[in-house]
């Protein structure tokens, strides 16, 4: 794995050095778990130490706190500012760092070398405060119109994000802006590149999160043009189940399959169901529970001796809120409140040992644009360090084949790749080798 590690380190170093030469900025595409935060922290510190104050723009308070914590831990004597909205309670993990100042006014943080805040908070900053550098995290989830509100604060910027994840969306009809280079609906990166075509786009080539079993499949389905590899080799990650199967049962087969191959497709009998398909919901919960009952142990480069997989290291991902709600209730019933259950949107950027996902197309009769969105599937399929189990009703391939492709096409609107329909086909083709039928 040294080779891949070096590959990753070279890429990062090149990016950091390229910042010096950059006229306007650099865009870095980062596949799942490729060390995006590490890059942000190193870039922020590097620029700060070279005497250039940096503003860091993240999308959620969670992300800001996380970055602040990492930065302060890595560089204890760096003056770090946490720009926050009124009524913000500093996260406990920030308490330890005495060089971290929290303030609601940017002006109060002028002495800080690095100031971090959410995009929405930055958008409220007024006056002529300016930073020579900005680092925009999760830039593919940031909407163009939000960037417009903060862009006057910086001269040059490093945009970091995962192009495979969910696009920004709106609740209103946005066709009237279709084709405009400043269409407010596109991502911050898209608008930036359309107006500054000579900004370099670099990629982080190695995923530290995804195991060797997952990287190729995810890369091929969701990152067809850039592509990436796993940092770890086939042998470096292992999932062992201490307890024996509780009986010859589909659930156990799926769990064993996932532990062995890193993937499993739990196929329920074909049926058109309501969104909160009871059987599917129960299956998701049961699988999460079964991993715990079987005493799953994870062995990795980080824990060579192995550590037990705790409930909080397992996540169940769904497409819709009501589905997550249903799974949550079942798990709560068996006292497993620590298992993280949420929608793709909210699982973005998070990492777990084991992922159980309810396939967005499971039980659907017609595939809508929402269900087909490549980003949604990509998020759910790329959260895990060890194994991913997909729960789905049979018949999705037929569903995809029968899907009418009649969306309107707008002129001068760049085609979004990968196409959700294609990505679904490719991902499903991969999964089919790991099929286990339930019940």
């Amino acid at each position: 794995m040294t080779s891949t590690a070096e590959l990753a380190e070279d890429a990062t170093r090149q990016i950091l050095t390229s910042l010096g030469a950059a006229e306007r900025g650099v865009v870095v595409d980062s596949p799942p778990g490729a060390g995006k935060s590490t890059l942000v922290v190193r870039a922020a510190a590097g620029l700060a130490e070279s005497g250039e104050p940096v503003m860091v723009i993240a999308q959620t308070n969670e992300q800001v706190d996380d970055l602040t914590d990492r930065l302060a831990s890595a560089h204890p004597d760096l003056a770090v500012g946490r720009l926050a909205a009124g009524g913000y309670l500093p996260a406990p993990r920030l308490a330890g760092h005495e060089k971290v100042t929290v303030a609601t006014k940017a002006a109060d943080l002028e002495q800080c070398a690095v100031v971090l805040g959410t995009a929405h908070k930055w958008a409220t900053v007024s006056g002529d405060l300016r930073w020579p550098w900005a680092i925009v995290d999760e830039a593919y989830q940031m909407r163009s119109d939000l960037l417009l509100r903060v862009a006057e604060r910086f001269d040059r910027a490093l945009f970091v994000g995962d192009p495979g994840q969910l696009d920004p969306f709106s609740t209103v009809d946005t066709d009237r802006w279709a084709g405009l280079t400043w269409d407010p609906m596109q991502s911050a990166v898209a608008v930036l590149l359309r107006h500054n075509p000579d900004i370099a786009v670099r990629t982080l080539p190695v995923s530290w999160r995804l195991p060797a079993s997952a990287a190729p499949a995810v890369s091929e389905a969701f990152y067809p043009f850039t592509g990436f590899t796993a940092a770890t080799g086939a042998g470096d990650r292992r999932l062992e189940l201490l307890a024996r199967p509780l009986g010859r049962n589909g659930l156990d087969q799926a769990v064993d399959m996932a532990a062995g191959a890193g993937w499993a497709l739990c196929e329920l009998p074909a049926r058109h169901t309501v969104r909160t398909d009871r059987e599917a919901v129960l299956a998701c919960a049961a699988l999460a529970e079964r991993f715990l009952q079987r005493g799953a142990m994870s062995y990795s480069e980080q824990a060579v001796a192995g550590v037990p997989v705790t409930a909080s290291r397992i996540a169940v991902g769904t497409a819709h809120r009501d589905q997550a709600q249903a799974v949550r209730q079942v798990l709560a019933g068996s006292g497993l409140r620590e298992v993280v259950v949420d929608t793709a949107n909210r699982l973005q950027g998070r990492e777990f040992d084991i992922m159980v996902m309810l396939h967005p197309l499971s039980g659907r009769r017609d595939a809508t644009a929402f269900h087909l969105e490549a980003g949604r599937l990509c998020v759910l399929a790329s959260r895990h360090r060890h194994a991913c189990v997909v729960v789905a009703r049979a018949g999705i391939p037929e569903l995809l084949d029968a899907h009418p492709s009649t969306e309107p096409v707008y002129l001068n609107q760049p085609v979004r790749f990968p196409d959700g329909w294609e990505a679904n086909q490719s991902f499903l083709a991969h999964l089919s080798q790991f099929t286990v039928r339930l019940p």
Partner: protein
Amino acid sequence: MSTLISLARAVAVERELAQPIRTVRHVHLADRPLVFIPLAMAGEANAPLAAMLGDDPASARLLTVAEPRDRDQRFAFAAELAGIVLGYIENSHAPQLIVPNPAGVTFTRLLGRSTRFRRTSGEWAVPAGVPLLGRWLTFFSERYEHPASSLMVAMTGALTEHWATGQSPVEDLSLGAVLGWVDPPSGMSGAQAAAAAEDPVVCPPAGPATDPTFDNEVLEPRMLAIRTAGLTGDGRAYDRARQAFDEALATQLTPVWAMMWRAVDLLRRVPEAGHVRQRWTDDLDAVAWHAGHIGEGGPPQARRDGAVAAARRLANMERIQEMVAVQRAFDDPLVMAEYRMTGAAFAGEVVHAEPDRVDGSGRRRVLRPRVTLVTSDDVSEQISASELTSPARPSQKARVVSLTAAGDQCRVTVELKGGMGRSLTPVPGSVPAVGERVCYAMVSDSYQNPPALPAPEDTPWTHGGPPPQYTPADDEAREDWS
């Protein structure tokens, strides 16, 4: 759409009659709306063929264009239209434009686009009033996209917002079919009326697209007659041909005209929702603002939004859409029912109340009444974790303090805060009493400020930098329309 509405559709199928999906009317109807039914010539880029319009069901004005491909005739039409529309806007203090369907809105928008940049003097001059018409038509069609506005209404949309038909949204685009479902002629079921409305001879399409067979079999020969009469210079023949042409178009438009006013009456019979009045006032402010803008010699609306304008418009639309959604839910139990279906709200009867409960735990004693209600809605986890509002008392916030299931019902106790006056005893009626049915929802109609955006001239480099100064260019005025 939602399960509630889809269920209404199913019922409509069974009863062969459209079913109500709203208890009140969420769109405002002006006292004298201007009904506008445009027809376009097939194949051309928004070439007006005819229009029937007016604000009085008893007197429709018919405008026709004998040769829609001829630039001068198009502008003659635009000028005539300007006379009527601008006059209407001036005389009615509350103007409202009603077209049959969304396609009618698009036609209006494009007609506005094709006329508002014209000049009334110099080369390529057009009749007075034409550019002004263009600016107003543009204004109305832009308000149509505005989630809170009733200034421009597409009739099919207004009807299907309040009734569910027994057909699909695709078929709901036909005014005749929708009206058939909602208000069938006596002796006919809604389903039958809708089916009948599909024969363009019985029920001509509501435009702007015309029935192809009508084009080929009726219109084309008559256009030809006009042309030949014109060539031979036989005035009498020309007049007759022209009259026959107008009458042919009248046969297409008159039935639609009747349907439009029938639909207006149907909607009037539905009582207006609480927040509509206030939204209408905002509409009228917008009208006044636009009139002022024109008066001060402001430029016509740009062809497309600049970076800043786009961001501002999007932010406003999102903000207002959210606000309107809440207002509708507060105005209309059937809308609130959608929230109850998804566990974002619950309603029940108050079985116990402590109106005078005072919380002394804090530094100062505060009035915190508690009421307990029994509901058969399922009360989700996230609802019991968030701040709730009741349509009956919008200024009052509630929080779930206890939740106990009782069979397939459940007892919820909420603690109330605010909206009860200053003293430690609540103003009478400000706390729900035992026996009252109340509803609590995870929504509130609190106002959010529009976002701060850079001035257009400060558009940052990420978005292409400052745009070039807008100056109405010659070619905009010249731009041929043929």
